[in-house]
């Protein structure tokens, strides 16, 4: 409607506050609009009445705001409102000193996981391709297997089919590979700083084994084509390659926050009074 200085409506004038004056024109206008439409289903006379009301309402409304918005003055008596809580004390997260002995003194930056994921993703291609060459004499074999999930017209392909080159297979497989590796890398990145002790063991061996186990039990539904043709031994090898390479890359990554020991809550990245901010208090209280 109008545009005036900010909060003009609210300026104080000798114990009163300016508020927009009540007005009936909006409801008149709204009624007019409704009748205008309602006429279509009842009687054109209703529409005519509606249009008249619209005209009257608009004029009334304009006169309400032009040339000046109409105001009313509401009297105030200010009394300070006390704002208090019965809960006076705020607990702090206790970061006990004792646990520190068991903890590493360094951890990895979150991004290291992504780098690891990329490196691992590239590395695992080699055992997979090697498998294709050795077992099936075709590098397209593993690629098509992976891509089989997304390729539409594949039903009961023969081994020869899978060994041939299909551009859809290559495309889908690349997308799956890139997405999956980046995501897993990100996850490592988020989790490893929390559990930073043995990235190679954790990320390299345990996680791939778990992953393979899970996949083995569900692949029949996710992608039966893949499932029927998969060589699980080789599969584990490429998974572990991924994990080990990713883990190694993460482990080589320069560690942050040297020379201090960090308790679990801190490693989780929890933001709370008295935790990490203490260390940075010299910078600023404003984190963002």
């Amino acid at each position, binding site marked *: *409607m*109008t545009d005036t200085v*900010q*909060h003009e*409506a*609210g300026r*104080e004038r000798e114990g009163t*506050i300016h*508020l*927009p*004056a*009540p*007005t*009936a*024109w*909006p*409801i008149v*206008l*709204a*009624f007019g*609009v*409704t009748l205008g*439409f*309602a006429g*279509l*289903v*009842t*009687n054109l006379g209703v529409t005519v009445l509606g249009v008249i009301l619209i005209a009257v309402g608009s004029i009334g*409304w304009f006169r*309400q*705001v032009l040339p000046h918005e109409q105001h009313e003055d*509401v*009297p*105030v*008596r*200010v*009394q*300070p*409102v*006390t*704002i*208090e*809580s*019965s*809960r*006076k004390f*705020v607990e702090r997260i206790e970061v006990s000193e004792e646990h520190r002995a068991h903890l590493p003194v360094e951890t990895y930056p979150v991004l290291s996981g992504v780098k690891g994921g990329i490196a691992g993703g590239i590395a695992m291609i080699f055992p997979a391709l090697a498998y294709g060459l050795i077992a099936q004499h075709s590098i397209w074999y593993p690629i098509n297997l992976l891509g089989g999930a997304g390729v*539409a017209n594949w039903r009961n392909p023969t081994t020869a089919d899978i060994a041939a080159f299909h551009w859809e297979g290559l495309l889908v497989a690349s997308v799956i590979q890139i997405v999956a590796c980046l995501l897993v890398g990100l996850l490592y990145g988020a989790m490893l700083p929390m559990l930073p002790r043995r990235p190679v063991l954790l990320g390299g061996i345990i996680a791939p084994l778990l992953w393979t186990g899970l996949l083995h039990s569900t692949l029949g539904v996710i992608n039966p084509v893949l499932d029927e043709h998969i060589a699980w031994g080789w599969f584990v090898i490429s998974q572990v390659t991924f994990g080990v390479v990713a883990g190694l890359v993460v482990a080589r990554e320069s560690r942050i926050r040297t020379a201090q020991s960090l308790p679990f809550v801190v490693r989780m990245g929890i*933001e*709370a*009074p008295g935790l990490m*901010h203490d260390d940075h208090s010299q910078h600023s*209280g*404003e*984190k*963002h």
Partner: protein
Amino acid sequence: MADQTLPISGSVDVTPPHAAAGTFLERLHGWVVTVDHKKLGILYVVYSLIFLLVGGAEALAIRIQLMIPGNHFLTAATYNQFFTMHGTTMVFLVGMPILFGFANYLVPLMIGARDMAFPRLNAFSFWLTALGGLLLYFSFIGGPGLYGMGAAPDVGWFAYAPLTAHVFSPGNGTDYWALALIVSGFGTLGTAINIVATIISMRCKGMSLLRMPLFAWLMLVVSALTLVTITPLTAAQFMLLIDRYLGGHFFDTQAGGSALVWIHFFWIFGHPEVYVLVLPAFAIANEIIPVFSRKAIFGYPAMVAASVGIAFVSLGVWAHHMFTVGMTSVSNAFFVLSTMLVGIPTGIKIFNWLATMWGGKIRFATPMLYCTAFVFQFLIAGLTGIILSVAPWDWQLHNSYFVIAHFHYVLVGAIVFNIFAAIYYWYPKVTGRMMSERLGKWNFWLFLIGFHVTFDTMHFLGFLGMPRSIYTYEPNRGWNGLNMVVSIGAFIQGVAALIFVYNLVWSYFHGEVAGNDPWDAWTLEWATPSPPPDYNFATDPEVKSRRPLWDLKHPDDPDWKYE
């Protein structure tokens, strides 16, 4: 205790607001001509609650009819009108207005403003919405012109073409549906504009966007989403009216028009619409869960990002309502993916609420009970949503009672539950009195039980192949017992709803006096008297953090040191 560097002071208004005094007629006049955001907010909420009862009564009639096979409680025609009106009422006359009611009342208070950006537009929008609703219900008596019997809309709330064409829907029911929703749609558009402008332009000093209460953030997102959501429906309804009144051919399959186009247009509106409905429910949870867990919300920036993310993604998933219309397999797959992606930001929200509760000291007053149930039920509802987004499975479940169960789990289990939570929570602010906790507990537990008896059971009816929108069914289908259970649950909900209404009224006169800040909360509205004076704040407040009242209550440990 008040810290002088943070000038938030309320005021106690000794002169009663002029409208509150006087005869009944004068008071009524006061409500009719008001441009005050608080009064309009109350009007919105009361209006929606009345329609909640009306829509609920329609649901009860539906459930009586379906209780046993071959029932004759309603005729086929009446049944069709009832479920159409039930859906339309609940979505357009309950869900949307009530969210605008809360936004109207609370947003200016929360951001420290005196009123909405455009107070008169605000009144205009409310009255459009209200009169649109009345026009819709007038169809029950108005029907085909002033001369015939009543004919309420009977084409489903989605009103698929070409059933809405003149040949197949000769009466005026469909016209009422379109016209009434166009009118209330204009009102919705006006309010959405108003809320956006208020939040962007009326914040008090210090309240940067990242210091706004999450409630305000979500209302901003919802209103922005509404701008591009309700308008396509209005446009499509205009096309429908052009077809019906001017002989146009938009959806006329005889003249080359396409029924599919309507289906697309409707869901381009319809899907974002369901997020328009649920985001305010999230907004309410975002306020209540922290206060009752006594902790700051976990991951505020992530919550903001997730809300914005949901709004964006939700614009690109509409065709998951159309897996069975025969789209290409590639389009089907695309919409499967986009739909599932919505689960990710939504999951972030659930996890953040969980993390907020984690480590807190949770007080289970009625609002928190409702919010906890909400999180739980929304989890299930979301997961059944994921089930539906699996297109091949949706080929089975589409238009079955499983879908009905899914969306009532959200619409009732999430939205209505949070509406109740919000009312219990802010009632003291609005009226100055607490609602009865004892009745509140009864209300909650009965509603919870009724809800689960009704809607849990519906999932199984869906598995057993019961389609929706049927007014009766064969006795030998194996659906008899389950339908009976569903109906019984609906009545338990009805009883709970009546207790709720009783509590609202009783507490207004007999409730315990609340004081300014009964929940020991942290946002600005609790720094004003209850009920707040016409001008909200005597002096414009100024804030330094997301929880201004926390800062005042804990001067030695304020948030702004850490945010």
